[in-house]
């Protein structure tokens, strides 16, 4: 059986998990904005501000994804990395407010928790990664979600995230990384044959 056929089969078998991921990724509107709706902006400025909104949202998603990856490393963190994340978080909150953007409740709560000094106050890695993906389903956010799911032993949804990532046009290096993760999680599910087939591809 070819690797493509294996991926097709897995897509069918993991359809419920893929649907749940698509629903999570479609959960936009987590940031309320008056950035786009103030008076009658000249069209050029309105276009530029629409791009700024995307950049703000992307950065918040990136902060949450980074926090999720850090959270996966355990209860204590290197001081320097923790402080850098805290600063990034405070900056994101400050600049959102300056530009009249209000994060949705879940995102605001997560940013508040990440801005405090105690690591114990953080949401779980899975919560952080889910918020990151819902804000913007970037490679970074998807990777954080897949790893958080895998760390919780949720191999099927983790495999679904890998499959979704593999369905996008990718460079060979990125495909290899996702394939390696998928193989590992298939093995955890006891699916050694298909894991071996994909590994050999």
């Amino acid at each position, binding site marked *: 059986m070819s690797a493509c056929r294996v991926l097709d089969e897995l897509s069918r078998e993991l359809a419920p998990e893929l649907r749940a991921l698509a629903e999570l990724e479609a959960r936009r509107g987590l940031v309320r904005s008056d*950035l786009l709706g103030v008076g009658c902006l000249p069209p*050029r*400025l309105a*276009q*530029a*501000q629409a*791009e*700024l909104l*995307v*950049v*703000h949202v*992307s*950065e918040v998603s990136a902060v949450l994804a980074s926090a999720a990856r850090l959270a996966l490393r355990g209860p204590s963190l290197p001081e320097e990395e923790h402080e850098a994340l805290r600063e990034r978080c405070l*900056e994101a909150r400050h*600049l959102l407010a*300056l*530009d*009249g953007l209000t994060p949705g409740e879940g995102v605001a709560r997560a940013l508040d928790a990440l801005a405090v000094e105690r690591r114990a106050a953080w949401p779980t890695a899975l919560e952080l990664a889910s918020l990151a993906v819902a804000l913007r*389903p*970037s*490679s970074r956010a998807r990777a954080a979600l897949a790893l958080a799911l895998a760390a919780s032993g949720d191999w099927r949804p983790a495999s679904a995230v890998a499959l979704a990532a593999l*369905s*996008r*046009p*990718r*460079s*060979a*290096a990125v495909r290899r990384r996702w394939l390696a993760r998928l193989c590992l999680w298939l093995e955890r599910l006891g699916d050694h044959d298909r894991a071996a087939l994909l590994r050999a591809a």
Partner: protein
Amino acid sequence: MASTSKTAESECDSPTVEASQACPEKRASRASARALLAGATPREVLARLIAGDPLELRARVASGLASEALFLDPDRAFLRTAAHVARFAPRYRGQPELDAWLDARVQAALRELAEEEREQSAHGRAAPTALAELAGKLKLEPAALARACVALNGCERLERRAFRALVIEAREIDVAARELGSTPSETGRAARRALEAALAALGQGSAE
């Protein structure tokens, strides 16, 4: 990558000139560039940046698109870059040099935009209107052309650059290979892989 204004300051562009020894015009221009980025909200900085393009971001974006051989709408890439510069301006403290910092912002904006278009294409969302005219000239559906661009942008850098040199610019393979630091056969193979990815994406719509 494009640097500051080419008018009347060509001798200032020498890469051997250290920042501390730069000519007075360039120092003044850097100071005014930094003033543009300071003391305002991202939204206000953005308005300054798109009014007359004082940091010459459009030229930097054009240069970034060419050097990375990315197939993106240049105007959207310019606006996204301006938004990036505006959002991250508070982090800029004078290091690295402004040119290097701006170029890094261009790269980040282009990567982000390419990834976003990949996601939109995966969800079958509408093709950028900027492609409509080009698609018409090529007798292709705009959505098909958008899929091909996304596929090309997902290729390795060497593949994209080889495709651009050999297919778009119709360069001699030996010349292109030299410029890419590769061999003619690897350059040809890389361009072919990119072409196959683009053709597969063009064919997707009709296969569905």
